[in-house]
């Protein structure tokens, strides 16, 4: 009976979580490459419903040059006004995929991504790997600064890519109650 109860509790709406997720964005232009890494992204994934929510403090993106980081926060994403980027989404092909089971699966996530106070719908292809109950979610997608009303002055228009590549890697652990 006890085992049954534990089983039901553990599979019922099983959620996985991280607070140390990795997000990198990369802007490549002939002028210069700009890279920023954040190791403090948070994410929660419900493997029953396929719901996923991720929040990241924009201030925690580390740039190679401190001045780039200051400009990113002050002039582009305005992180004092809009401190977080938030992604809320759902895995749409969940019924064919059992995340519970070992192995790597391709999933499609329909997500609303909010940056700079502007929400944009995206379809993100992601990979979810279950290795003995350790879940690793990875994804690569692109975002366009104008979609989020991030203005880039003409003077630096050639230094910032039209499409910014975003790489995500989250090692998720079961949520402890």
């Amino acid at each position: 009976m006890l085992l049954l109860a534990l089983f039901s509790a553990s599979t019922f709406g099983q959620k996985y979580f991280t607070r140390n997720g990795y997000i990198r964005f990369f802007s490549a232009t002939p002028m210069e490459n700009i890279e920023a890494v954040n190791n403090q992204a948070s994410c929660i994934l419900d493997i029953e419903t396929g719901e996923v929510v991720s929040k990241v403090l924009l201030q925690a993106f580390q740039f190679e040059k401190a001045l780039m980081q200051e400009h990113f926060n002050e002039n582009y994403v305005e992180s004092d006004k809009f401190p977080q980027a938030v992604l809320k989404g759902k895995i749409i092909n969940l019924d064919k995929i059992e995340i519970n089971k070992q192995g790597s699966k391709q999933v499609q996530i329909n997500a609303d991504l909010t940056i700079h106070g502007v929400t944009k719908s995206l379809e993100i292809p992601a990979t979810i790997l279950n290795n003995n109950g350790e879940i690793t979610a990875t994804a690569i997608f692109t975002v366009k600064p104008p979609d989020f009303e991030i203005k880039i002055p003409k003077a630096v228009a050639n230094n910032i890519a039209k499409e910014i590549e975003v790489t995500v890697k989250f090692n998720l652990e079961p949520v402890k109650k």
Partner: protein
Amino acid sequence: MRKLALIISLLLIAIWGLAQNIEDILDEQLAEKPKTEFATATFKSVQLINSHTTKLPDKGDLVFLIAHRFGPISAGFSDLWGLDLATIRLGFEYGLTQTTSLGFGRSTYKSNYDLFAKQLLLRQSTGERNMPITLGIIGSANISSDKWPDDGRNYLFAHRMSYSLQFIASRKFNRSISLMLMPTYIHRNLVKTTADQNDILAIGAGGRFKVSNRVALTAEYHYLLPGQTAADFKNPLSVGVDIETGGHVFQLFFTNVSAIYDAAYISETTASWLKGNVRFGFNISRTF
């Protein structure tokens, strides 16, 4: 019976977990370990106008600061309202760590070399650690390389030295407004007359008001505490504008100071705003 209670409670937890919004669960988890967020970009540059700020070059970065103070505008047309006359300082400041910087400068005024160290003691932050202000301390030693007057006196090397010690308490109130308070102690080994003070105390205040993402209005003032210096010299007052373009910060301002290092501009300003002896000046800082 105990098993049943356990089962029910476990089921309740499971159901509660289901009913709860997934975002709320994330927020709950995050609230367990709040992160410390430091206030950033309280000031645009390592100097506000004449005063140092609590901004340091990032670790490993070198800031090159070119400072000009022109002559008094009251000099009129013949000196192009002061633009023919200028005192300058060329300075470097290097970020040794995230909270320590070392600097060096050479000024026209008194052919002075200044060496300084800036150390942050507290950093304004919210979250796990709440700190309302950033507190820094800056010490400088100055060596004047002026030729001694030919007056038969015996001058020593020590007579070339002056020092300043300043606390800077700053707070970024919101995205636009940052203010700082700067109590300063100045010591000069040599003064002109016996009546002059070797030791001087002053309290300064300064701030910036951002009008856009790249432009800010700035002002700073130092009040000399009553004494011989306060009676003979003027309190330095400056107002200006910061303009940021990529890697440069341009600071344009009006001021009554002509010296450009702490121990001199605070204690040896003679020009008066009231008499129109205001000067135009600028700083350009470039980060490497």
